[in-house]
């Protein structure tokens, strides 16, 4: 009798990389449902198209790199990148926006860096930032929530036509469909010396405590994020630290001058704060490994989001803040370690 003698342990948890990635996708569902409810078919079309592009690019790159296709295509990481990027793109963007962003995210930001696990920057955010600085017009033409578009109903086919290039339905102009985002509106209006209160109470784009629709989408992402925490797919450190950093900054300035600085609650439910806190900043590949490192990383993302939103050139800031902190991750990992058992301070508690 000759049996195999692999080394211990001989037991393994059932979870795998694809389990982790699929759970992230499941957790996006509540937020996505709200997103689709408020913004229509464009969201669905963008996501499906991005997934097809991402898997196509991933397969092509894996083939070129002589890597096995099956384990890497089914690991779910390209799926997550595609969905996160598609969520970040305006729902009525032309198809080539999604194509360029997704292809760049997968080919350059992920595969050229070595594929799964080796990328320094969050691929979805690299794709998003590339699009934002290359095609500012398309990327800021955000469709207004459906309830604000009164003249037309945007059916599936209409949306498909808009996205895939056969233009807008007769008599409809893009201006009628799009509007500045809440964060953008606020930024321009504050520069014109309007007070935050006036802006929020007059512009129709604002809802109860964030953007109209956007606040509910954010709430959906919060719900999904809490489920991820419950399932231990992510740790609490990064989301809590990031939200803490952002709210801390917002609170300070809100107390100093509530007319020029919106409330912490507004920051929490606007833009990509909650999506970023639970789904983007928590990308393990590009975040620090230690607990204290993650706290610092998250907190600094939160601070940067506030700084960029308030004083930077772009109204939304999560992508830039995350990418900047991705850059700091190796340094954080180098300096911040956990205390090894039996080393250093002998604590009783």
């Amino acid at each position: 009798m000759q049996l195999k003698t692999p080394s211990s342990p001989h037991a393994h948890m059932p979870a795998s990389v694809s389990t982790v990635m699929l759970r992230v996708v499941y957790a996006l569902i509540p937020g996505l449902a709200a997103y689709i409810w408020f913004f229509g078919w464009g969201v669905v079309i963008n996501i499906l198209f991005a997934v097809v592009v991402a898997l196509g690019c991933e397969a092509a790159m894996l083939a070129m790199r002589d890597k096995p296709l099956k384990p890497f295509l089914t690991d779910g990481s390209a799926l997550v990148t595609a969905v996160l990027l598609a969520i970040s793109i305006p729902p009525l963007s032309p198809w080539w926006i999604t194509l360029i962003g997704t292809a760049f995210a997968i080919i350059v930001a992920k595969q050229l860096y070595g594929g799964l696990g080796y990328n320094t920057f969050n691929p979805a955010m690299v794709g998003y930032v590339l699009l934002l600085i290359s095609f500012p017009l398309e990327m800021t033409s955000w469709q207004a929530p459906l309830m604000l578009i009164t003249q037309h109903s945007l059916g599936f086919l209409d949306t498909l036509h808009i996205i895939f290039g056969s233009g807008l339905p007769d008599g409809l102009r893009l201006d009628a469909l799009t509007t500045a985002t809440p964060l953008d509106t606020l930024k321009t209006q504050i520069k014109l010396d309007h007070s935050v209160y006036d802006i929020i109470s007059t512009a129709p784009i604002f809802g109860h405590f964030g953007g109209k629709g956007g606040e509910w989408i954010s709430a959906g992402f919060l719900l999904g994020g809490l489920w991820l925490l419950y399932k231990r797919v992510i740790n609490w450190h990064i989301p809590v630290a990031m939200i803490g950093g952002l709210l801390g900054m917002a609170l300070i300035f809100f107390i100093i001058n509530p007319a020029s600085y919106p409330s912490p609650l507004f920051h929490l439910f606007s833009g990509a704060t909650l999506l970023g806190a639970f789904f983007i900043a928590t990308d393990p590949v590009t975040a620090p490994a230690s607990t204290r490192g993650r706290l610092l990383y998250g907190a600094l993302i939160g601070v940067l989001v506030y700084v960029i939103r308030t004083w930077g050139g772009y109204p939304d800031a999560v992508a830039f803040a995350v990418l900047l902190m991705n850059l700091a991750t190796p340094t954080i990992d180098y300096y911040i370690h956990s205390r090894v058992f039996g080393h250093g301070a002998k604590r009783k508690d």
Partner: protein
Amino acid sequence: MIRRLWKFNGGVHLPGHKEESTHHPVRRAPLPKRLILPLHQHIGESAEAVVKVGDQVLKGQMIAHAKGFVSAPIHAPSSGVVVETGDLPVPHPSGLSAPCIVIETDGADQWAPLQTHGDYMQLDPSALRNIIREAGIVGLGGAGFPSFIKLNPGPGKVVNTLILNGVECEPYITCDDMLMREHAPDIIAGLRIIRHALHARECIVALEDNKPDAYAAMCAAAAGTDIQVVQVPTIYPAGGEKQLVKVLTGMEVPGNGLPIHIGVVCQNVATAAAVYRAVEYGEPLISRYMTITGGNISQPRNLEVLIGTPVKDLLDECGWNPGTLERLLMGGPMMGFALPGDGVPVIKTTNCILAMTAADSQPQRPVMPCIRCGACADACPVNLLPQQLYWHAHAKDLDKVQEYNLFDCIECGCCSYVCPSNIPLVHYYRYAKTEIWAKEREKQKAEAARLRYEFRLQRIEREKTERAAKHTQKKEELTAAPIDPSDTKKAAIVAAMERAQAKREEIKGGE
């Protein structure tokens, strides 16, 4: 009394699989025809055989004596004839063969005369240690460190806490659980002997909260004494020595230190029972409780097994299916090692034989790249950074792995268990450790060779200068002092005569 408990970082909750093997009371395994006794069953030096082929041996007779300080003797588990000595396959992760003594049993199971020692309270600690050493008792929890050494705290060391470890945290294994259920008084008696040897201030028996029967038995046995029986939360690896010390005392054993450095001594419950048998009845360690379990076994249970019994005999006893046997482990699924076959014997440290089917062991999934999820660091009970260790071990950066405290790793397997990318992390750490040890040995060898070489050069140099000096001296003598040769000669002769005279007188004086 509720004792305050502490927590260690990480750990994992594992499916227990303990019920399977606890349905039946423990019974003795049938006497095997052949007993194979490896001379190396413990940490330290191998024992040295004192019997040869053809010798008759009695049950309990010493057949190999301890060689060196860190060593333990080995006794015949049953009566019979020594039929073979030499290298045979032994249960060791390396899968290599090692020196063994093979006894063919005669079925009489006849004891050698045993020496009892009377009331242990009258014995001083060193006498107790000697009895325990002579009985061949080693740590039965798994490490197999000779027990008498741990019972010697050393000069100036005070033992505040003596912990009896009944935290059997590995899945499947239940031999300590069954021992506590069935022989709680023996364990407590052993604990008191150990306490007497150590002058320990407080005694704790610790076991997990998933063993209510054992807890009740231990509480009953400890009733009326100041021994505390404490239940600790069930989480793997709470039974690790350093982890258990932390849970019970809140103190951390220093990185490269021992529990005694913080005034704590840990012993396994089975060791305590063996100490009791040795001191009370003079019985050496020749058998132990063992769990035979796993999906491949039709009647999983615990047996009292003679050391040296071939694994196959135990599998036969409990019913197994060679056709579906996927993996045969000695020890638990987390830290046990896979056996290449069923021919090897069980040894003193064997607590479990785990016969797994394909369904028991998780299907082999492809190893994916690390996604830095940090699940390993969250699970590490030593608070290491398994990811970084993995990167550096993978890159063979042996200095870096040591900077990241590789040698604090207890190889519990938590990191590998939780890794979603299925990376065999522990395997990499073992590899790095072996590499480092090999390098150290190499370095020591090279250093010795260098010293030898330098010494030789020095010697040659010294001899050269000495020769040169002698040469010049002689030359100088010849050239500088051409004294009348007859004078010196005469003087030498006179001196020699005087010496001879003196000697004669001395001899006369002596008579």
